[in-house]
């Protein structure tokens, strides 16, 4: 069964599977699907009401954590994660009981459930990395701007953190891989899709986009980063383990290393 790739679309698909008592289904994103010769394919129309019914039904049979896990694992965009989640949802509707605190999402001896918990951990770690590795630069029109390209689609999870923290400054975090951003206008956070010029991260264009002080603070930060290091304890393996190289391109303190 194919769906439009949204979370609501996925829940609508789940609804249809329950309604029509389908078995042996493979759920795939429409955009990624490949034609198969022998399987019957069906495209699900996203229906907010149906999605709501599944979501509310889950609330009666599993804890908030269980439901959060579904959403987080979904954001991983990992191939076939939809079917793993379907297994969890089916088990929850047949056995889950919130009053007896029978929490299906804690049955770690079920390989599919364990997989979800591992994926949730990965997604959560990526979310946390974005909380840490976002580096804002101040543009000439007073916007704190950052680009990221996380392994998973985690920006929806980051919105609240940044809103609470930077309540008095306008900011935009842009996901260059998925071509959308979260934007805070001093009132609320919105999802916006826009084209950001490739030159935004070019060092030679920095003075065109960003304030004069911006370069100064980046340099101060790089200096601080160097001074706070203790050379006699050097441990590059640990360093790279904590800050994998794929993130260096966002981290102004690592720019000097990238040039090398």
């Amino acid at each position, binding site marked *: 069964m194919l769906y439009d790739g949204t979370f609501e679309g996925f829940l609508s698909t789940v609804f249809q599977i329950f309604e029509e008592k389908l078995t042996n289904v493979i759920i795939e994103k429409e955009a990624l699907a490949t034609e198969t010769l022998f399987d019957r394919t069906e495209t699900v129309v996203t229906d907010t009401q149906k999605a709501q019914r599944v979501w509310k039904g889950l609330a009666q049979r599993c804890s908030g954590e269980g439901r959060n896990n579904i959403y987080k694992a979904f954001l991983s965009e990992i191939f076939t994660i939809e079917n793993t989640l379907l297994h969890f949802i089916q088990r929850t509707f047949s056995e889950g009981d919130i009053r007896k605190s029978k929490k299906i999402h804690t049955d770690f*001896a079920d390989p599919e459930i364990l997989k979800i918990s591992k994926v949730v951990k990965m997604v959560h770690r990526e979310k*946390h990395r974005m909380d*840490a590795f976002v580096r804002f630069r101040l543009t000439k029109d007073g916007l704190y701007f950052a680009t990221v390209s996380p392994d998973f689609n985690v920006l929806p999870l980051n919105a609240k953190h940044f809103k609470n923290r930077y*309540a008095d400054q306008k900011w935009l975090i842009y996901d260059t891989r998925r071509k959308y951003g979260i934007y805070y206008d*001093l009132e609320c956070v919105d999802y916006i899709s826009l084209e950001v010029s490739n030159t935004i991260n070019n060092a030679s264009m920095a003075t065109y986009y960003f304030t004069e002080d911006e370069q100064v603070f980046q340099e*101060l930060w790089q200096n601080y980063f160097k*001074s706070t*290091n203790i050379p006699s304890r050097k441990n590059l393996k*640990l*360093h790279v383990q904590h800050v994998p190289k794929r993130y260096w391109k966002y981290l102004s303190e690592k720019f000097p290393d990238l040039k090398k």
Partner: protein
Amino acid sequence: MNFERIKEKLNILADAAKYDVSCSSSGSKRTNKNKGLGDSSGMGICHSYTEDGRCVSLLKILLTNHCIFDCAYCVTRKSNDIKRAAFKVQEVVDLTIAFYRRNYIEGLFLSSGIFKDADTTMDRLVQVAKKLREEENFNGYIHLKSIPGASDELMREAGLYADRLSVNIEIPSEEGLKLLAPDKKREDFIKPMEKVKNEIIQYKAEKKLIKSTPIYAPAGQSTQMIIGASGETDAEIMYTSAYFYKQFNMKRVYYSGYIPISYDSRLPSIGTEVPMLRENRLYQTDWLLRFYGFDIRELLNKEHPNLDSDIDPKLSYALRNLHLFPVDVNKADKTMLARIPGVGMKSVNKIVHARRFRKLNWGHLKAIGIAMNRAQYFMVCDSRDFERKDRTAAQIKSLILQHSNSKYQNTHNQQLNLFSSVETPMAV
């Protein structure tokens, strides 16, 4: 702002502050107020890691490295011939805000050399924190050093602006302190700790009655000890540590392997390796005390005054107490599960949940993420092929060491060679 001058100061004063290992930015309850800047109610965040693998969470600087004391272990000691500098209050405020707004840091960790006297120094630290909170409406994390000897009034003010206060006792034993810092006494450190502890208790009690009572140092206090500078045993260090946890409700005690910075004959000479493995073992012990329900006397005592370097302290405990094992994973309570080597607290929780649904076997446990290399000798589960052989502690230890790769292998390479030459015939 004179950029070049600030840059130079930042280099000197960050360099001087880096030996303070505390980097924690968690545990506070300060939320964003009136759409101000910052929030430190969540978990701590490490924004970056230096090349030595330590986390960068706070802007960690000294206000000044001018100091009237001459403690042998300290890089800013009076007699050391180094460049000196001092920040103005406003400069620290501006740097903190500029870094915070760019998401470089969680907040500020401000310490200082003692210039003039304790009160003047403490007053200057408090001024920075006050400005950040009141003028900038800053709700990020602030960690201030309590300066021993500062007045009660200043200490109270400090706790109202800061999230955490700390005093480093630096040398684990009183004799060591006498030798290396003759100007200082243990009581000088204890007094501010006692003070902060009592204020925290008092403010908490008042807050229960009157909701508008301000919070006092919501992230508590911490301290630090230098390891390997003054000849203490691991037992001496950890008993001191346990005492501070208990007596002063410390949130954290940090252990900092001594980095040779001086030719003073009382100290390890320059070029001596930083005792990183030892530091690691001490932290493991600290974790066992705080999260695994161990009592210090079970891990270190007269018979075992030092931790093993080649195996972790929990494994070492288990080998000394083989009569408590094997533990039945499907029946044992949490406390006992937590004592199985190779099983961490996360795994303990997973086991407790998962076994409600079915009996667990080796396959399940392995998938959950237990370090089977160590754990297999200390537990039984719903599988028939458990360890039946009655092995001695020494046999188990060498079996485990044969099948493990320690990142510190080079450090105790000689020991390993000794073992493997003995054990090779058995393995064949």
